[in-house]
């Protein structure tokens, strides 16, 4: 990537790219897969550099990007806390295909991370929660207040495999009730192109729904 393009990326992410260049830049970003890839890396690095102070206006991003690109690798911020959820957000392979929207997810969704029976050594805690903040569950015996909560350790011998297709079913069912952003996020994730799946598992992507038909 040329220095000029790098500067454009940095300026754009800083909100400092002139209007006259912004439209061209975005058009190129739409067409150029390599540029998008680089752009994604820059954006990720930028967020890592900003860290917890990212709510302020992002000035001087270009310098940070150049430092990250030209210098030592940057320790990127990970969405998963403490490595608890290993990201393997790749195509679903070795899965059976169910009917309806479930099938959509099965063939399309890139599932991101599953830990099966693996927990962090440091349990997640929810402390300092005010009792006044706890809302009761409607139509049910009262849900108790969460004054302090520790995620219990998993029992040993947890099955190693997770039925990916089933999980996707739940995600899709949930999306109907999630906020607009969450719903859009699910759909956007489904639209993302999968990486190549192992050939041995290709047979798994055949729907078994008896209502399936082939268009004339």
């Amino acid at each position, binding site marked *: 990537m040329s220095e000029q393009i790098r500067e454009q990326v940095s300026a754009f992410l800083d909100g400092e790219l002139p209007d006259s260049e912004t439209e061209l830049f975005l058009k190129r970003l739409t067409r150029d897969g390599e540029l998008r890839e680089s752009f994604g890396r820059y954006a990720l690095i930028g967020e890592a550099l900003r860290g917890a102070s990212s709510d302020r206006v992002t000035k001087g991003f270009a310098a940070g990007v150049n430092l990250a690109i030209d210098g030592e690798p940057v320790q990127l911020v990970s969405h998963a806390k403490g490595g608890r959820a290993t990201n393997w957000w790749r195509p679903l392979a070795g899965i059976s295909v169910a009917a309806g929207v479930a099938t959509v997810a099965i*063939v399309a969704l890139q599932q*991101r991370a599953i830990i099966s029976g693996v927990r962090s050594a440091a349990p*997640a805690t929810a402390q300092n929660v005010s009792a006044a903040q706890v809302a009761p569950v409607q139509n049910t015996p009262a849900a108790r207040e969460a004054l302090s909560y520790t995620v219990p350790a998993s029992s040993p011998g947890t099955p190693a495999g997770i039925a990916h297709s089933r999980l996707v079913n*739940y995600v899709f069912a949930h999306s109907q*009730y*999630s906020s607009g952003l*969450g719903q859009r*996020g699910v759909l956007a994730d489904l639209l993302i192109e999968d990486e190549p799946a192992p050939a041995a598992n290709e047979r798994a992507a055949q729907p078994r729904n008896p209502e399936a038909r082939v268009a004339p």
Partner: protein
Amino acid sequence: MSRPLPNRANWLIPCAMAGALLATLPQRSQGADDPRDWLEKMNQALATRNYDGTFFHLSEGRVETMRIVHRVRAGRVTERLQSLDGSGREFVRNNDELTCYLPDQHTVLVEPRQDRGPFLGSLPKFGASVTDFYRVESLPATRVLGRPVRAIAVNPKDQFRFGYRLWLDEKTAMPLKTQLCDSHGRVIEQIFFARLDMPENIPDSDLAPTVRTEGMRWVRHGARQDTASPALSAYRASELPPGFHLTVEGAQSLGEASAPASHLVYSDGLATVSVFVEAPREPEPASGAVASSPAAPAEPPMQGLTRVGSGYAFSTVVQGHQVIAVGEVPAETVEFIAHSVKTSGGELPRH
């Protein structure tokens, strides 16, 4: 380079999430610069506008380009979401069904949707209590895509929910850019538009898929009467993170499961978590099986944490039942809720 035309501005509507934000805001009478007023303006625009835009979705260093066409006509919303990055997948949805075109899989899937009224209008409505769990505040004014914007942060007050940042166009209050952030302010996912048209009318042709469906397999999921068994319906979360409460309870048929799962939805007004409770799955005959064919092996129960999109799912087994909590929330939240699920009657349900 000329500036975009007024109806082709470089700002956009990322999504109806804005509506959710607005819906959570309490009634008040404050100054015009109150960030909550800006969110209300944004919601108003979202509720009444048509739009057609191209946006970038950034997550984990990946950038995906997508096009969205969104039409509101006579209270009905029709929307088309299209990948422009190679897969060619498209989703078209209206009040009645969601159709998923998957050319890379040679498949079209049609899923009925329960009609919950206008899409934007179906967003949850909550009162002032949401501000107990989020801080809505202005950030320094800046520019995005060369346009002056209002920057607004909706910050979670604890670790049980994510926050948002929005950059709203000064002229239209429409968001040019949105970010989903964790409780430390770190960006998890962001969306920004590269192009946005807001025409008075959007023809049906713009909402029609571009995918050629000749020779593709069509899979249609028919409407089903979903009622969970009394045993499954007896399960509830016995403890909840602050601010979350039960908003929906019902049943959901999921894939090949022989019986509907109990489906509970908990929300704090912005964040939403679904809990599914299922009976153990029995082995099923293989497709096209004859009497002597071996049955497919039973699926083992799921246990553990999974990242899904911008959120998480946590699976566990409670009294022999599969429990899954999933939502656009931090891992702690789905774990918290899943581990608290119990039968409300205190007795083990019988199958």
